[in-house]
């Protein structure tokens, strides 16, 4: 780890100023990902701007009936918040499915959104990686990619986004708010994360130097049920090999509204628009759910050694939607 300057920011403007003063500065939130990446040499900042004491740690109702979640709210506080649990159970479940009690106490909402992939080539600075060193190559395409992407990947990068929280936020139509220094901006989370294309090192639409300040969660429709399910290679404390966040509203046996996002299958939380199109208005049953899953996964391009993710995601989508439909009609 290289030596660095450390500053605590007192307010958002102060944070932006401190960051702008050093081109190799980074914001420090919980540090659960950044400090680890600094230890492995992936990140070598010369200044850390600690933003955890900024007054961004509240969760408040919005005028529209949704929630405004501050960027420095910890994962633990987010998952424990009564309004999150009551109105957005998929989000609480997703956060609780991630990491460990200790890491959730440290990790912040803003930091979670910006966490980097856990691809083993990305974290090994002795070898190439297009995400870490643009143009150096992607060893995963021909090497180890058992846990890598099957949707939306390119020859340049097949890494997956590691977040559980982000998958739920993507299903729940969250909006990311940030401050650039020239005023606040907001962007739907589906636009916040960029497609991988030939620029895997560019992961989000966050302008350079900007600070995430909050999330907006719109209110769910009346009668909606949401759920997050995660499959991993051990029962806890592991990244997903596949996950599903879904929200379903059923009226008279038909799907009135469906929101579906898939995790651990793409470079970003994957919003399943094709599946939602099949679901909306269709009978809420197994045949519809299977058709929806197939519609989304028709675009899957598995690599030689991660083809299992296609049936895994199909089964997981059907299983979670079936559970939600049963809950809705109970």
């Amino acid at each position, binding site marked *: 780890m290289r030596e660095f300057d450390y500053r605590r920011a007192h307010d958002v403007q102060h944070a932006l100023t401190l960051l702008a003063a050093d081109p190799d500065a980074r914001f420090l939130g919980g540090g659960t990902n950044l400090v680890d990446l600094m230890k492995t*040499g992936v990140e070598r900042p010369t200044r850390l701007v600690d933003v955890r004491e900024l007054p961004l740690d509240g969760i408040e109702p919005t005028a529209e009936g949704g929630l405004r979640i501050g960027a420095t709210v910890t994962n633990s506080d987010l998952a424990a918040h009564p309004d999150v649990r009551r109105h957005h159970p998929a989000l609480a479940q997703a956060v609780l499915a991630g990491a460990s009690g200790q890491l959730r106490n440290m990790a912040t909402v803003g930091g979670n959104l910006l966490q980097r992939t856990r691809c083993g*080539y990305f974290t090994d600075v002795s*070898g190439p990686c297009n995400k870490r060193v643009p143009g150096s190559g992607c060893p995963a395409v021909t*090497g180890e990619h058992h846990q890598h992407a099957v949707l939306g990947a390119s020859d340049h990068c097949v890494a997956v986004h590691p977040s559980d929280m982000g998958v739920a936020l993507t299903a729940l139509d969250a909006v990311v708010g940030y401050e650039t220094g020239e005023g606040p901006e907001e962007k739907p989370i589906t636009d916040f994360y960029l497609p991988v294309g030939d620029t895997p090192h560019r992961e989000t639409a966050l302008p350079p130097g900007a600070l995430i300040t909050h999330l907006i969660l719109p209110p769910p429709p009346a009668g909606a049920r949401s759920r997050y399910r995660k499959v991993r290679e*051990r*029962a806890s404390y592991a990244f997903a090999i596949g996950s599903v966040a879904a929200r379903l509203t059923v009226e008279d046996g038909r799907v009135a509204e469906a929101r579906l996002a898939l995790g651990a299958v793409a470079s970003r939380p994957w919003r399943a628009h094709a599946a939602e199109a099949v679901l909306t208005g269709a009978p809420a049953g197994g045949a519809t759910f299977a058709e929806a899953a197939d519609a989304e996964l028709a675009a899957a391009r598995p690599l030689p*050694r991660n*083809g299992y993710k296609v049936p895994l995601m199909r089964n997981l989508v059907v299983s979670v939607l079936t559970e939600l439909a049963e809950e809705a009609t109970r």
Partner: protein
Amino acid sequence: MTTTPPAHRSVGTARTRVEGRDKVTGAARYAAEIPFTGLAHGWLVLSTITRGRIREIHTAPVLDMPGVLTVLHHGNAPRLHTDYVGLLGVPPDPAACLFQHDRVPFAGWPVALVVAGTPEQAREAAEALTVTYEEEPHDTALTADHPDAYVPEGGMPAETSKGDLEAELAASAVVVDEEYTTPEEQHSMMEPHAATARWDDGRLEVVDSNQGAGWVQGELATLFSLDPAAVRVRSEHIGGGFGSKGLRAHQVGAVMAATALDRPVRVVLSRRQLFSLAGYRSPTIQRVRLGAGADGRLRALEHRSLNQTSQVYEFLEPSAGVARVMYDAPAHRTAHRLVRLDVPSPTWMRAPGEASGSFAIEVALDELAERTGTDPIELRLRNEPDAGPVSGLPFSSRNLAACFREGARRFGWQDRDPRPGLRREGRWLLGTGTAAASFGAGAAPSTAQITAEPDGSFTVRIAAADIGTGARTALTLIAADALDTTPEHVRVRIGDSDFGPAMIAGGSMGTRSWAWAITAAAQDLRERLIPGTAVPPDGITVRSDTTAALGALSRKERHSFGAQFAEVAVDTATGEIRVRRMLGIFAAGRIVNPLTARGQLLGGMTWGISMALHEEAVRDHHTGAHYAPDLAGYHVATHADVPHLEADWVDDHDPDDPVGIKGIGEIGIVGAAAALTNAVWHATGTRHRHLPLRPDRILTAAPGTKGEPTKRA
């Protein structure tokens, strides 16, 4: 010798650990936690290529970095004496014999040691050190048909054979002929290897984390051509070992640097470095052929195992050795083959040979039970041998049948419907399975000292190691009984090579070997203590050496045995497996401390869960290096993976054994992965033969699933 029955009986009663308070308050100090004045810190630099030669090490820029004291490498390191055979009958692993040449035989080979004033400075400088290489093509992939497979020599026989295998197979009513594989597994003890070395008045002192202080002392003295009396190794508390904590690069690096700088130097391996420098269990490709009559009685048994070793060291994972103890047949063949690859050297890891070998043979037996329509327990009981299948020697005691009977009763085996794939609970299919276990009960020569103190207490000194086994407490109970006193009057001091030669904590032989030496010394001491006479101020000290007594032990097959039972829930739509319960019943000699003994057996069974479901070190064969070598990439079982497990034991008495202890550190893992795999078959109807039972393997094997099972790069 006294003939009156002793008044005190501590062995067999549950006792909390004598060092327990220190462990729960954080007062127990491990190797990297003893303070030294003027301490410097060393950080190893490992090769980033897999095979080749070091061209240049650019030390000058690094020597100018803040706090850097020296950079050791093959160009300036002292020459070591490496041509010797150590305490355990094997030469040193060249990966520990630092900087003796410019060759790189595997990825993660140590090429330099950077020493600096603080750990942060040392690490940053080590990462800044530029090393250039001449790279050569490498081969790191173990394949069943590898052309370089060879028959290893030395150690146990590579092959055993009797009878006409092909004729008996041809005459068998039922034949099982399958391949089973296990992946590379890593010890992953919680405490990384750490050593601090310093010279003190002409004597080399090393504070280390190891499984045998005297063992490592002997190795270091020989390597550095020092008088053994001038080397002292201490290892008081050890954060897990499992076979990995012997002579390793960290001690050698610390000694080299402490010598070069004439100040104390500490070297701690990082979690990533452990993956290439601390040994591992070799992957295995095993072939089992069983031939049996319609009643399940074996006519032919063949177990072949192919394993890997490094280019610089030969280590055999003796997986095919299990059948030499467990099952007999008129035609019986076991065989090992090795392939030298451009990989690190494997080593002993909890139940070496038995853990991986029992997976293959015990799943194969379950397949035989299925195909003959025989109950899996009944099948094993029908094939109980009267004597060692290969040696022909009698068993000192073999209470496997008693383990199965007691286990079946407690597990509720009699109510089991043998048909697979029938039991469903929500999205989960349920199944149960069983397997047998065995592990050798050996002993090795050891010495012990006991001092009768003037205050009526006793001090025992023995170079034993407590790597978490509870040995310190067990030896306290053993000594108390042997001295006819209470444990409160006995202090057991361990982990210091100055206490004299002793067996290491390994091979499930530690407590048995040390107890033998302590018992012998105690008998001697009691004869010297004259009732009514005061003990002199310096106490009365006696020493024992069990070398002769061990040599007098009759030749027999001496083993622990066990029966493993497991119940699993499997979701074939996602491939998830949840273990619901396990029961292990063991025949493991005399149980010294039931509280810690249960922990040892449960720990082994927990390793079985981890081996069955999780563990797999992945190597990218293009780069030749590990993929994601850390505890997020290499999964061991978490709390959530381990349900309530039960372990218990049956009486197991060996009439001609003076100590009667068999060792319990390893048998708990043996057969556990097979019992779980057999339970997955019973739940789903699909037979799995490759570990770990990853979700993708379960999912893609399920009927009606489209998709390919994953092979790792």
